[in-house]
């Protein structure tokens, strides 16, 4: 019997599993002000980022999209935008676009208010009020289909592909089969599996788009000098650590990595980094690097309300808006990195427990976290937020 799932239904109909008042700097120059505004206010969280000005073209648009879609994430109930006053990102416009979703949104501008202290004072008043209002909203019973599950792996070892990734894959398949959505990303980690993934694409257009994104990433990686290990060229994101860990080729690494995206749920669409996914149930693919803080930020911004993150060696990562549930299949890591690991599936390799039964336990934990149980990184206060840069800094 599956546990009952509770979520916060937002004015636009989307469902979140956290109820944050988000304090977002429009530009990196006011990161510290934003942090001090949110400090110690229950239910408030600030993001810290390095963008908002001195950017052009696609790089600027990507950063802007990430900030906008972070504000739109259903785990966020209200937003205060903090501007400096002369940055390229206009906090006024950003506030208007987020407010179109029906959320309560306000903005303050440091140069207009007259410095750090005045801005903090004004901001704390607004955020305290927003958080008190949000605290009155009670989560309601929601179907499993309201979950948007991001899947990601980092600091992988051999155990990831043999146990934690396939277990996460079964959970992703379960969510999609119940009308929900899952998001696979890390374009660098699907290189070599085009044939398998395109067969799962729901339309030829989606298949073409997916293959194009992989090609683009391969060309991008080859525009730089290739890494080599003992004289052997190893481009396309197979690292010295991977080779030491037993991974021989990029094909092998990718086959292990894509199992996080399940086995049968169709791939229904491909989006850019931090672009909102559509409403169609099934597996979505987001074009992104594999780098954990940037990838998980993109997964959150594209709409993921929960993330399952597999790690063989263990990593402490967390996100300010979306809970990151960390899973290891390596028993040594489960013990040594216990501060940072939420789910231990090492019984698959150590005791021969089936992937299916670990998946059932994982789904249960996923629902517990959705219902409010803190992840390790939430309890530790992690706020990793990184936006992929694709252009020059001016």
């Amino acid at each position, binding site marked *: 019997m599956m546990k009952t799932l509770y979520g916060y239904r937002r004015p636009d109909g989307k469902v979140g599993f956290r109820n944050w008042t988000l304090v977002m700097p429009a530009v990196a120059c006011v990161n510290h002000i934003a942090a001090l505004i949110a400090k110690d206010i229950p239910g408030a969280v600030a993001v810290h980022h390095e963008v908002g000005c001195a950017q052009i073209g696609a790089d600027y648009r990507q950063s802007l999209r990430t900030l906008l879609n972070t504000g739109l994430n259903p785990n966020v109930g209200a937003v205060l935008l903090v501007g400096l006053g002369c940055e390229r990102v206009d906090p006024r416009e950003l506030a208007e676009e987020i407010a179109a979703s029906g959320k309560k949104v306000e903005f303050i501008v440091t140069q207009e208010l007259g410095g750090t202290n005045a801005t903090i004072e004004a901001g704390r008043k607004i955020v305290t009020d927003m958080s008190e209002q949000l605290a009155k909203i009670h989560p309601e019973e929601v179907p499993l289909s309201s979950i948007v599950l991001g899947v990601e792996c980092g600091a992988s070892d051999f155990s990831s592909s043999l146990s934690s990734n396939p277990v996460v894959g079964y959970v992703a398949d379960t969510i999609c089969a119940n009308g929900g959505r899952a998001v696979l990303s890390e374009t660098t980690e699907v290189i*070599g599996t085009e044939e398998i993934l395109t067969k799962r694409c729901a339309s030829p257009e989606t298949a073409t788009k997916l293959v194009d994104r992989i090609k683009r990433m391969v060309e991008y990686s080859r525009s730089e000098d290739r890494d080599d290990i003992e004289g052997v060229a*190893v481009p396309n994101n197979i690292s010295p650590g991977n080779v030491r860990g037993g991974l021989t*080729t990029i094909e092998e690494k990718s086959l292990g990595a894509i199992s996080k995206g399940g086995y049968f749920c169709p791939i229904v669409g491909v989006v850019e980094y931090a672009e909102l996914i559509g409403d169609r149930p099934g597996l979505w693919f987001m074009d992104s690097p594999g780098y954990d803080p940037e990838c998980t930020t993109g997964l959150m911004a594209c709409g993921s309300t929960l993330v399952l993150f597999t790690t063989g060696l263990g990593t402490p990562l967390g996100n300010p808006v979306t809970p990151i549930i960390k899973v290891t299949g390596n028993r040594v890591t489960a013990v040594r990195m216990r501060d940072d690991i939420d789910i231990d599936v090492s019984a698959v390799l150590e005791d021969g427990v089936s992937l299916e039964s670990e998946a059932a336990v994982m789904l249960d934990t996923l629902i517990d976290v959705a219902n409010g149980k803190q992840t390790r990184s939430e309890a530790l206060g992690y706020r990793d937020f990184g936006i992929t840069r694709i252009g020059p800094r001016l």
Partner: protein
Amino acid sequence: MKRGLIMNKLDNVATVLDDVAAGETVTIRGLPSIVEISTLEEIPRGHKIALVDIPVGMDVVKYGFPIGYALTDILKGSYVHVHNVGSKRTEE
């Protein structure tokens, strides 16, 4: 007992879950019946062992899909890694 795991019945390699020395027997699960293989050389934990002879040029198969091809004749029980497996993708 030294342990190994096969991910798909089509695979011609398995992953060893313990460090193994040359001449040791690895008990491999993941198939309907348990398979025992004697190792020809040392293989570190998490690395791969050949389940059958893999002639030069043949696909090396894991998860039911080719992960590369044999650069040399790989004998059953051998250590399978970058020294004897090539990647079609890397060479493109």
